[in-house]
């Protein structure tokens, strides 16, 4: 059991550090609430809009692509340490690994993950159907479960949403809506 | 060639699959030809196998093991075929007659909209029947047994749009259930005793059974056979089964399926031999009584097919009489000849019905010999065969049964002889009424008018024409002959044939089977001529298959030559007497005179059917009501209670399925705790 003692000590220390910092900030900091302090950016600029703003989903995508390479790097470190001992075999293995990780990057690029222009079309499909009309399009999307009687009424307000439904790609969900 | 055995059932099965899948696309009549092709192919294969078995010599016992279904521990079910003289004989005439009837049906059913379905069922039936006959174990036989039962049900209610047909189908199904129960019990007991169901295992070992066990098995098998082969008291379904199309009546309810019970008894004769003496007495008595009772009913029926149906029941009774008397060869012999002449009779009656525009009442027939020459010729040949006129086939086979029955007990022999007299009588009555008596067709038009008249009055209100017609119809006294010419009643019958109506002979696809069957009905008797042992082909052929049924494995001494001659003479005499008497009564078509010979009791089939119905409706119903009450409150209460409980538990459990991930995660976590605790308990227990 004694071999686990350092772990326990570390655990206690970590918890203690967290608690301590909280405690210190609560007790020592002066409490002076003001409008400016409550604002999202405490830098003197008065916010012009609501704080929880919508922003393009692309930001997330970039973050996720970043993670992919992050992980790659994490695996590169231990390999680099024993690089010589592993020799050619290690080189081959890490090469395969890197190729596979890079493959995901190829996929992302191929699907336009880094295309930032507005309204970049994502569909690879040909025209869905030549005889597709405005009405059929609206019915197609989410008509399921809607009572039939409602349809004529629902049709009119739904009509001006139709183009948006028709051709936005998956990357643009946030922006279009 | 014996290796072709699997082909015999496989071909009709393939035909069934093809017809079931593509029947509609093949259409009418091509679907019929496809069905006929596969039935014929099966027949050819059967002939080859038969030839192979004939050449094989020796024990003539060939088993083809296809595969083992469910090889689990001690319970293994083999799918395999047994070809021995008995099954070889059976497959030969089953496939042969089936092929002929397929051909016939192409003509008979040509106007039916469900034409392909009909042939699909027929092929399925042939397959099931062949499984029944060829199976090398009781379970396979039972599968075939159920298969033919199901096909029979489908085909009886083939024209299910009519209420009567549908209920006839149900009646057949339910009555057969009673028999099947017996068969199933027998199978269970056999399996318990031997641990196997294979004939090659159980039959030789049957002799070693305790007497009571063997008796029980034999009786249960007999109950099964009674259901399928329409013996007293389970015969009521067969006459009603005539609601099906006529080829079905010929194939299933005369030639093949109903003889399955006889086949089963002959196949399992070892059990009868090992059982108590009274079992064979029971079988013989039931058979003899059935033969007599059904023959009596046959004397008074008007429906051309009903007469033949009761005749079938009666002839099956003969076969059981033979089985009970230990004359297994005679039973099979009669089964074969009966298949020939009865199929011929049924198909002939179908041809008559077809030619008469769907008229089945014999009172409205007559004179048909002139219009249906081929049909009548073949029908007459078959009539002579069933009436027992030498040298037609029926004479030889029936005679052999009577001799053995006499050896069993003179009473049985005598009753059999009386039945033979009645048989000759009612068949002559039928032939006379249909073919020779004065023509009375067109009368069915009157009947329809009479039936329609009151309705017309109601419908037309004070319409004068309707009144006049109704009055005209009302003037017609019951039982008197009135024919319509141009819608008016006319006295007398010779010249009053409806000018628009002409009975017509059927096409070649219907007459060819008739001719073939008629030829067989003539010469079928030569299979087993009782002159010397050399001419008893069938007896020596079947000997290995029936040997186990003989007490001590030795063939019992047959009738002495003197007895044979005596019985031949007597039955010839009896047949002649029956024919002559019936002819004298029915020749001139005098209904008033004839009616005296058709008592209401017999027309009503001894009121047996009615009694069963009355019993079921009266005291039986009260008993059933009581049972139903018990069933509702106690049994149903328990069952429903369980059902309700299960459902409510289900509903409760459904509520747990809330759809929230958190509750699911909680569920998984609780489950994990349970599993870990279960594991930990193992640790602590040490």
């Amino acid at each position: 059991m004694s071999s686990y003692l350092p772990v326990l000590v570390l655990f206690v220390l970590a918890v203690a550090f967290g608690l301590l910092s909280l405690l210190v900030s609560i007790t020592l900091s002066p409490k002076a609430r003001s409008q400016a302090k409550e604002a999202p950016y405490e830098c003197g600029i008065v916010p012009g809009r609501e704080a929880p703003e919508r922003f393009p989903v692309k930001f997330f995508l970039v973050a996720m692509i970043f993670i992919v390479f992050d992980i790659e790097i994490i695996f590169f470190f231990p390999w680099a340490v024993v690089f010589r001992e592993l020799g050619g075999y290690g080189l081959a293995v890490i090469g395969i690994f890197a190729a596979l990780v890079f493959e995901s990057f190829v996929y992302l690029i191929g699907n336009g993950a880094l295309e930032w222009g507005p309204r970049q079309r994502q569909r690879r499909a040909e025209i869905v159907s030549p005889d597709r009309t405005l009405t059929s399009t609206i019915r197609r999307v989410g008509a399921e479960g809607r009572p039939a009687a409602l349809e004529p009424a629902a049709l009119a307000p739904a009509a001006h949403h139709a183009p948006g439904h028709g051709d936005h790609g998956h990357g643009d969900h946030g922006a279009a809506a | 060639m014996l290796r072709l055995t699997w082909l015999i059932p496989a071909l009709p099965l393939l035909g069934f699959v093809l017809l079931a899948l593509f029947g509609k696309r093949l259409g009418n009549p091509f679907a019929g030809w496809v069905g006929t092709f596969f039935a014929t192919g099966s027949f050819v294969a059967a002939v080859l196998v038969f030839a192979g078995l004939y050449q094989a010599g020796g024990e003539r016992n060939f088993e083809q093991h296809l595969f083992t279904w469910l090889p689990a521990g001690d319970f293994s079910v083999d799918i395999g075929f047994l070809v021995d003289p008995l099954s070889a004989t059976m497959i030969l005439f089953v496939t042969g007659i089936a092929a002929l009837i397929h051909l016939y049906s192409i003509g008979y059913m040509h106007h039916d909209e469900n034409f392909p379905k009909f042939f699909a069922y027929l092929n399925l039936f042939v397959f099931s029947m062949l499984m029944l006959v060829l199976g090398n174990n009781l379970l396979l036989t039972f599968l075939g047994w159920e298969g033919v039962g199901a096909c029979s049900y489908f085909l009886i209610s083939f024209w299910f749009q009519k209420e009567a047909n549908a209920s006839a189908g149900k009646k057949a199904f339910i009555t057969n259930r009673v028999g099947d129960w017996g068969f199933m019990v027998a199978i269970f007991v056999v399996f318990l005793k031997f641990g196997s169901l294979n004939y090659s295992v159980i039959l030789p070992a049957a002799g070693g059974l305790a007497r009571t066990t063997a008796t029980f098995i034999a009786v249960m098998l007999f109950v099964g056979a009674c259901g399928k082969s329409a013996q007293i008291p389970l015969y009521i379904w067969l006459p009603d089964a005539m609601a099906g199309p006529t080829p079905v009546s010929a194939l299933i309810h005369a030639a093949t399926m109903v003889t399955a019970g006889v086949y089963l008894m002959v196949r399992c004769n070892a059990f009868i031999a090992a059982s108590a003496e009274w079992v064979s007495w029971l079988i013989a008595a039931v058979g003899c009584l059935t033969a007599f009772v059904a023959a009596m009913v046959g004397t008074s029926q008007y429906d051309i097919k009903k007469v033949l149906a009761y005749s079938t029941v009666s002839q099956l009774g003969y076969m059981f009489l033979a089985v009970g008397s230990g004359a297994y060869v005679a039973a099979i012999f009669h089964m074969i000849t009966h298949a020939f002449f009865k199929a011929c009779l049924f198909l002939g009656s179908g041809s008559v019905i077809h030619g008469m525009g769907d008229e089945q009442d014999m009172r409205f027939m007559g004179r048909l010999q002139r219009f249906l020459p081929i049909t009548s010729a073949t029908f007459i040949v078959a009539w002579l065969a069933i009436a027992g006129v030498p040298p037609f086939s029926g004479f030889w086979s029936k005679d052999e049964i009577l001799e053995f029955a006499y050896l069993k007990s003179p009473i049985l022999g005598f009753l059999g002889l009386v039945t033979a007299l009645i048989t000759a009588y009612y068949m002559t009555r039928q032939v006379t009424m249909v073919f020779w008596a004065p023509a009375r067709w067109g009368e069915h038009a009157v009947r329809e008018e009479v039936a329609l008249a009151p309705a017309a009055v109601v419908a037309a209100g004070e319409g004068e024409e309707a009144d006049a017609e109704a009055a005209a119809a009302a003037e017609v006294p019951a039982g008197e002959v009135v024919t319509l010419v141009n819608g008016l009643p006319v006295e007398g019958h010779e010249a009053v044939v409806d000018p628009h109506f002409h009975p017509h002979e059927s096409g070649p696809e219907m007459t060819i089977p008739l001719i073939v069957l008629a030829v067989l009905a003539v010469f079928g008797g030569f299979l087993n001529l009782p002159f010397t042992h050399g001419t008893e082909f069938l007896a020596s052929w079947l000997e290995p298959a029936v040997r186990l049924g003989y007490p001590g494995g030795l063939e019992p001494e047959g009738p002495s030559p003197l007895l044979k001659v005596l019985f031949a003479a007597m039955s010839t005499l009896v047949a002649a007497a029956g024919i002559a008497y019936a002819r004298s009564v029915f020749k001139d078509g005098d209904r008033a005179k004839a009616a005296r010979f058709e008592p209401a009791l017999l027309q009503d089939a001894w009121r047996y059917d009615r009694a069963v119905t009355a019993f079921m409706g009266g005291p039986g119903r009260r008993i059933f009501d009581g049972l139903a009450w018990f069933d509702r409150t106690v049994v149903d209460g328990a069952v429903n209670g369980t059902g309700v409980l299960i459902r409510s538990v289900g509903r409760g459990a459904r509520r747990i399925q809330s759809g929230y991930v958190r509750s699911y995660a909680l569920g998984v976590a609780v489950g994990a705790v349970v599993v870990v605790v279960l594991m930990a308990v193992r640790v602590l227990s040490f």
Partner: protein
Amino acid sequence: MSSLAAVLAQAAPGLTAGPAAAAPTPTITVPDIEWTALLPILVLGLGAVLLLTLTSLARGTVTRSGYAIYTVLVATGAMATAAPLWGRVHAWDHLGKWELSPPYGPFSAVAGAIGVDGFSVFITLLIGVAVILGALLADDYLRREGIDGPEYYVLLLLSATGGVIMAMANDLIVLFLGLETLSIAVYVLAAIHLKRVQSQEAGLKYFVLGGFSSAFFLYGVAMVYGATGSTNLVQIKDLLAVKVPTHNALLLIGLGLMLVGLGFKVAAVPFHSWSPDVYDGAPSPVAAFMASGVKAAGFAGLTRAFLLGFGQFASDWQPVLYFLAAASMLVGAIVGITQTNVKRALAYSSINHAGFMLMALQAASPKGVTGLLFYLATYTFMTVGSFGIATLAGRTGDGHHDLADYRGFSRTNPALAGLFVLFLLGQSGFPLTSGFVAKFGSIAAAVDAGSWHLAVIGMVSAAISAFIYLRIIVAMYMAESDTEAAEKAPKAARIKVPFGAGLALVACALATIGFGILPNGLNRVAGEAEPVLVKEPVPAAASGADGAGLTGLDLTTIPTTPTTR
């Protein structure tokens, strides 16, 4: 495929021996890789990556049916590379024209991480079949639902890769690797229908709960490692054979936690709660694959870990499996009969089936393994067939799965209704269908192992679960369609069966009938597919199947030898 094998075989020594020898201090031993053993995994995995790369680089050049055809080809290729392994395992000299190279008999590869035996090859083939059927069903479905791109097929192949890894795993870490490869792909597959909110929900639920259960599994592996000092099943088995572990509780609790993770994958009660929601929400072809391929992989993992690695502890884990089997059979059957949604009902029926398979597994006997494999194989066809019908009957939007939607189905689509009846009867264990033989085998194995009560519970649950199927059949046949619209325009209600789906359904129907009437062939193959643990190195010297170095599964002794601790 053989050319690929040759290339890889040539590449192998160059990569391994050469530079390694030149290194100054080779402290790390480089494993000798038996490439042919890895071929099924490689074909599936590289097939997926290749498809993804090609479609990314050259967008729009491949037509969408091309994906399905490609997937079928890859799966067939994987099965083709697995076939020689089967021959080698059974010590055949050659398969057809090809000479099979030694070693003969079951063997381990890649430093004992991968075990090639009849069992793993059987499961590999089964997963291949599930992939083929899943691709055939999905082809038209994806087009109908407007789901573009190769992602479905890529993920299908990747999850199959994971499944095969699980089937071959001889090491708990490898098992976990396979489990995750399988699972993550399936999580995404469940959510692949972007327009259907239920699909998204299903994907999320499956992901969250799956992650939860995987954590349990990993904890279990860690505890087992703590108790035995190894994650390799061969080493663990050897260790346990000579030495009673000191931390017995740790080992058993570890086993219990592993059971949680794997039990989740096969949807055993009480870890089943996700399955109705996910089967209902996921696209129907995905549900078909989940019920067939994923389940097969899960049972492969269970068998390898418990029966092979810890067969010695059978008396410890048998009661737990007993409990899981009984609960799964009963809960699946009882809750299933109250369902009004066909896909949910099928989900509960699959829980019930999982119970039957667990019952076979808990017998811990060769007969049990045979029963399990037979059950898995036949169930794959029945369930894919059922979900295949649901795929077609769901119509555009994949939302018509209520029992009421099936009313009058027999009139509008007689052929599909007939097939559905066949699959449902099969699942209910109707004689002359494969389901009967499968249930029979499972119950017989339980009886042989002395688990009478469990066998009785199984039979009772089979009787109850028959109502699940009867309700659907009754809805299709007895209840007339109340909408006159169907009467007036039967063409509108008639479903056009696309070629791929039709092919899959016919194959499933043939298998369901065929294995019901002629179960012997499959039964024999399942019997020959016994799981064996073999020590590294490969028994090259051994010419026969039972060469030296086998620490094979001596299952016959398990129930009679209580473990002493």
